[in-house]
């Protein structure tokens, strides 16, 4: 009996020490990704702006879109989306004006006047100012979208994608924002952070 117990104990310890990937449901997975403590969401504060850079693998983007269906066990949309984004890695760059509530009316008017210029830059030129460093290589974006919020949300979002599999290398996203005159906005993601990425579990009917 003793031998059996010690054998079971040893197996449990061995299995737990193997430290396999965490498995989370879609909502918990998104929360994990967005928790800065886990190192997949970085913040760079510069002057009047704050840049939140979210590492967003295909699983994260597809979960954001289909988590409600996934919770019901419906996976068609998720699978289709995953197929479409296969072989790419994405980043969401959210640009927040700092202390927006403390801005004076004249500051807000100036900002609104510059809205057209801002949209022009982020829609047409900013993609050339973003680069991904992975290992020894530098890569330009293969997909790029600027989500124009028409002033309805307090931040603007850029979705930028790069072709290739970078899960085994340290990565660094570098953005030279020429609209806000902010050079060298860097967000680094280490191999360790990337290898600790959880996987998604879905209850199927």
């Amino acid at each position, binding site marked *: 009996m003793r031998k059996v117990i010690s054998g079971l104990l040893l197996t449990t310890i061995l299995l737990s020490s193997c430290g396999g990937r965490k498995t989370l449901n879609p909502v918990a997975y998104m929360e994990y990704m967005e928790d800065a403590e886990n190192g997949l969401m*970085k*913040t*760079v*504060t*510069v*002057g009047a702006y704050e840049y939140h850079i979210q590492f967003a693998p295909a699983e994260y983007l597809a979960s954001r879109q289909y988590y409600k269906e996934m919770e019901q066990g419906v996976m068609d949309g998720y699978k289709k989306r995953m197929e479409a984004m296969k072989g790419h890695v994405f980043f969401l760059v959210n640009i927040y004006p700092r202390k927006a509530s403390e801005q004076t009316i004249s500051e807000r008017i100036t900002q609104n006047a510059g809205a057209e210029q801002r949209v022009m830059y982020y829609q047409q030129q900013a993609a050339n100012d973003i680069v991904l460093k992975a290992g020894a290589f530098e890569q330009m974006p293969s997909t790029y979208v600027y989500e124009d919020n028409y002033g309805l949300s307090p931040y603007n979002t850029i979705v930028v994608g790069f072709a290739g599999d970078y899960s085994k290398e340290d990565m660094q996203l570098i953005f030279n924002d020429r609209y806000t005159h902010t*050079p060298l906005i*860097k*967000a680094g993601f*280490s191999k360790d952070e990337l290898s600790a990425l959880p996987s998604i579990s879905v209850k199927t009917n």
Partner: protein
Amino acid sequence: MDKRMISKIYAWLTVLSAMVLLIGAAFCWQLMKPADVAYIDIGKLVSGYQMKKDLDKQANVDLQRIKSVSDSLKMIKKAVLGTPTPRLDSQLQYVQYAFQQYYEQSNRSISEKIWERLNPLMEQYGKERKIRLLVGANGAGTVLYGDKGIDMTDDLIKYLNGKYEKGN
């Protein structure tokens, strides 16, 4: 020795060792306690900050371009030595002026950009390290004397460069 005596000695020894432990712990805590006040060598901080190095490198590329134009004009001037070249002279003067202007402007802008980035991070650093006052020593007499033990420059440079490369 009777039993009573032994138990008394034991009690005294226990009290004594507890006191020694307490004093030792207080001493260690005092040693390990983060400094309330620290100072930073600003010159060393700025020159050790990786962003400054990167921006300097970028600016140097542009300055080198302007300089090469100026060097070419100087060569031409040397080649036509003795001949009056008023147009060439004014061109050379303009390029030299542009070089000077660009140099000054890039220095100013690099300094602005660096401090925009450093200020929020220094606040964060102070809070994280539980420092109540962080003084910047700039060689102009703001800090007349500072113990090496409260010189946090190297630690801050390491902290800032980590945040610069990885984000917060």
